């Protein structure tokens, strides 16, 4: 462990020098590391070995959720990782805003910062880099996936606000609600004094930044594989690197296992994903990507994003399975035009209840179970 500490201090020293040099020599440029840190590689040289209870090869039991890994729920966590939060209140800025132009007076340096490692840097969806000089302690997350990830890596106690529709884990019901991404109660947000606001839409970001609220804007991921990366990112931001790595590794292992179980499948069923009134999702969406992973053939292969699918094309492409989200399935028993669909004839129109609809829609740790449920519906013979 002492060797780890010395490595860390070397890193910290390099980081500080780098930042000072950058800050003094190039005032108009934001701090950019030579190679922008992709969200995948941990920026901290901390040990990437997962917590002992999280064996990567182990698949989660169907009944247990990944969020019930030992890191969660917990009281005030010890600062296990170097990037972890320290309770000392320092006047140091904890965050470098995601603006390409630096604040007057040059780039701030983490000289007084208690974190002795190069700060995590995240590139947001506008291409700006966001540097975390200090792990955020008061997070407002306007995204269910981020909420679930924070709880799952043991940082749920830092959540001071979330959107109105957050419902999982149950603890989130005690977290103050601040509207949603489209109808944000900015006053309420300001009152919560967050040191990080996470959002998937950037409409109100200028307003929030003007109020001095640090914003991290990342669009929702459109691939399943991006979720473990998001979890690792949250690990680096919050300092819960080990827990995040454990969870991410477990998810990746479960994806790999799913792939293995589907290895014998040559051609998956033709599937139609119905969000109601024939609204469906193309392959470039998150749901579309789930079907790719599950080797099912999304009949809306030529749809980009979301679209209302034509009933004629639905009949023409004849889905073998219909996955209908909450409330969308009733039309299949009602419309004579759909009576000839293979899915209808073979009784394979699956209506997801509210919980299952959420489970396959939130791009968080529970997607492992969402995928499993979908696999069960698509391949009843392989997943009894």
């Amino acid at each position, binding site marked *: 462990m002492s060797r780890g500490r010395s490595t860390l201090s070397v890193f910290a020293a390099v980081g500080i020098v780098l930042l000072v040099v950058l800050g003094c020599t190039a005032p108009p440029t934001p701090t950019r590391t030579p190679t922008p840190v992709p969200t995948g590689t941990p920026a901290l040289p901390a040990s990437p070995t997962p917590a002992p209870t999280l064996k990567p090869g182990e698949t989660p039991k169907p009944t247990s959720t990944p969020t019930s890994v030992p890191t969660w729920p917990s009281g005030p966590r010890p600062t296990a990782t170097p990037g972890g939060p320290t309770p000392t209140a320092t006047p140091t800025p904890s965050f470098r805003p995601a603006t390409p132009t630096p604040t007057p007076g040059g780039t701030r340096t983490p000289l007084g910062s208690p974190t002795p490692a190069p700060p995590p840097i995240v590139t947001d969806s506008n291409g700006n880099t966001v540097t975390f000089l200090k792990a955020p302690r008061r997070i407002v997350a306007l995204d269910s996936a981020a909420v679930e990830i924070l709880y799952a890596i043991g940082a749920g106690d830092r959540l001071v606000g979330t959107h109105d529709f957050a419902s999982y884990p149950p603890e989130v019901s005690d977290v103050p609600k601040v509207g949603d991404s489209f109808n944000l109660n900015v006053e309420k947000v300001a009152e919560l004094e967050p040191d990080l606001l996470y959002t998937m839409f950037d409409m109100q970001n200028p307003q929030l930044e003007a109020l001095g609220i640090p914003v991290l804007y990342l669009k929702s991921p459109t691939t399943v594989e991006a979720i473990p990366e998001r979890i690792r990112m949250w690990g680096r931001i919050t300092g819960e690197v080990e827990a995040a790595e454990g969870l991410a590794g477990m998810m990746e292992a479960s994806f790999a296992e799913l792939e293995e179980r589907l290895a014998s499948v040559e051609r998956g069923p033709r599937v139609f994903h119905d969000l109601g009134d024939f609204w469906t999702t193309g392959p470039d969406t998150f749901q579309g990507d789930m079907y790719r992973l599950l080797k099912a053939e999304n009949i809306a292969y030529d749809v980009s994003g979301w*679209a209302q699918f*034509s009933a*004629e094309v639905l009949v023409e492409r004849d889905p073998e399975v219909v996955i209908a989200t909450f409330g969308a399935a009733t039309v299949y028993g009602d419309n*004579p*035009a759909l009576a000839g669909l293979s899915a209808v004839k073979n009784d394979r129109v699956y209506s997801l209840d509210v919980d299952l609809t959420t489970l396959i829609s939130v791009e968080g740790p529970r997607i492992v179970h969402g995928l499993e449920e979908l696999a069960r519906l698509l391949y009843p013979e392989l997943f009894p």
Partner: protein
Amino acid sequence: MGILTWRRDAGAPGGEAAVRTVAFAYPWRRLVVGALVVVLVGLLAAGVGSVRIPPVALGKILASRLPWVNIDASWPASWDTILWNIRLPRVVLAGLVGLALAVSGATYQGLFRNPLADPYLIGVAAGAGLGATVVLVTPALHFVSGVNMLPIAAFLGALLAVTAAYGVARRGGGLPLTTLILAGVAVAAMASAVTSLLMIRSNPDVRPLLSWLLGGFGRGQWRDVLVVLPYIVLGFLLMMAYGRTLNLLQLEEEEAKQLGVNVERAKLLLIVVASLTTAAAVSVSGLIGFVGLIAPHAVRLLWGYDYRSLLPMSAVIGAGFLILADLVARTAVGSGELPVGIVTAFCGAPFFLYLLRRSRRM
């Protein structure tokens, strides 16, 4: 408030027609030709789509449905489903709805003597929108013991809104039309506010709702055709019967009374009939803008102001236009669909502007 009133000068063609009711020849030829064109447009729309059905196959598939014809099916089974269960119902439905909206629009314009009047003027659209929204944001209400509640809720919402506006506006034995418009606008504003509130507070996918509000025939079935057919046919015939009265109502109410019109009864009947017809149309199609406003004006610009020919020609133009608009809506974007309300406004507005421009030169 800037509500335009709109009267014929004695010299204008409509004014003449309104007073001089002697030399009116019913435009049979124009009507028959128009109806034939609508049928042809309907057949074209039935053949064109994401799957193109050639005319011969189209004829065979249609003929094979006749009880005494026996044709071996030489076409894919999916064609039969697509044509018979998807395309034809929506073509017929688009025609009926276009007819209903255009005739109701013409009636409202005549009744309120207001060129800006459309069938949604006194709250039908907002009420129907609210009814549909309530159902769509509570999936438990969508199907009650197997019955699709959406059209029913939209229909009831429309009637409720109009009734509220009517109840507020009615004074003693009379019904001041300006008050009715204002009451309708206020009721519509309230209903729209509640609709928006429900949309914004509903979690989280409002796309189906939005596409309903913009109108479309994607869920159209023969059953819907059968449900709305009596309302629309009956409403159409009743409004047609009041063509001459509508002409006279273009005069001041006092003058119309002296010419033998029971003005109050005509107003009441026309409002009830036009609202019912519109509500029936809206319940199966959602809120399709523009048709009810523009079709009657196009007819006026092309063929004059006499309501006895204006009403049937509006029906023809409205039906044909909406069938074509629906054709565009379902073929414009690959395997997806557009809300037809977008198409009616986007394609209809330039055509109407052209007509306006042309008529000014005349």
